[in-house]
């Protein structure tokens, strides 16, 4: 069949990127620091956030959105901190996107927030593609994962500003090769900031909490006003 070609040239991510820009402006207006947390399943995201919310809640207004394909188990775990938490159940989708965040914010009333954590779906491929309007992208990597994981999933580590290395209390027992792991991370992102901790026994948590507070201070020159949904 004879045909002619109609040029279009459209970026498929443009809709997500536009929504994310809208979210970023909204969070900025409220002075809310937004932290997008990415990792493989089982790296300890939820344990890290449980402990993070518990430590920050007495001092700051913190909340969390939690993405999972099914169940609200993680949201229930995080809600024990007393912080407002909302589960986003993504069903077939393997990641959160800006539209899901926008919808989750509708009809949710956490009050003004200083810090909003977004626990992404456990997956290192797809979530890396989607801007959620965050200020800080954190990739969580546990010492039980392969040291070459950053080379296998370069985009997640390349687009993150911070890598949180979890389960550091069992690093020796599992033979974690710190030098190799950090070399892999720096081969995809030489500027990545690496924080080692054990959310379970508390080692290194002060450094991580300090990092969040420092980022919040940088975001809000004068601590007035906050994000209200």
């Amino acid at each position, binding site marked *: *069949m004879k045909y002619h070609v109609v040029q279009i040239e459209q970026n498929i991510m443009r809709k997500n990127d536009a929504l994310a820009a809208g979210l970023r402006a909204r969070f900025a207006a409220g002075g809310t620091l937004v932290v997008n947390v990415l990792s493989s399943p089982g790296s300890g995201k939820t344990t890290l956030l449980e402990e993070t919310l518990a430590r920050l809640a007495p001092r700051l207004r913190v909340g969390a959105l939690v993405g999972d394909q099914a169940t609200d188990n993680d949201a229930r775990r995080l809600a024990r901190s007393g912080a407002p938490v909302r589960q986003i159940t993504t069903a077939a989708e*393997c990641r959160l996107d800006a539209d899901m965040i926008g919808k989750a914010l509708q009809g949710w009333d956490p009050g003004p927030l200083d810090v909003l954590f977004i626990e992404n779906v456990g997956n290192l491929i797809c979530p890396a593609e989607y801007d959620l309007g965050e200020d800080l992208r954190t990739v969580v990597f546990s010492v039980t994962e392969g040291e070459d994981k950053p080379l296998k999933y370069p*985009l997640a580590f*390349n687009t993150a500003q911070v890598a949180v290395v979890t389960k550091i209390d069992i690093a020796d027992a599992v033979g974690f090769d710190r030098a190799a792991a950090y070399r892999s991370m720096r*081969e*995809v992102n030489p500027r990545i900031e690496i924080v080692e901790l054990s959310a379970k026994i508390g080692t290194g948590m002060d450094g991580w909490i300090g990092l969040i507070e420092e980022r919040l201070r940088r975001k809000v020159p004068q601590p007035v006003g906050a994000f209200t949904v």
Partner: protein
Amino acid sequence: MHELSVALSLLEGIEETASRDGIARVLAVHVRIGAMSGIAPDALRFSWELATAGTVAAQSALRIEDVPLAVRCERCGEDREPRPARGLVCPVCGAVCPTIVRGRELQLVAMEVPE
């Protein structure tokens, strides 16, 4: 693994253009997919067939242009293609090159329509 939602976004772009230009049938769609886009071409083809059933693009071919990963090597002053699974490292001089210049594409490029 979000190929179906990518297919639906592609279709949305096609339908917008088709309705704007009064096009009733699309024979083929050209897309550009980067190696780092997280999209598997075969899964996208499969999703495309499902997504387009009963639409203006039903049974259209999906023509995929693969874009290899390329990074900017500041030391060489060139764009380079890193070796797979070796980090964002210049294959010529060995420098780490965190600036991705190609390979994240997910683009709807064009469509073929009957004369």
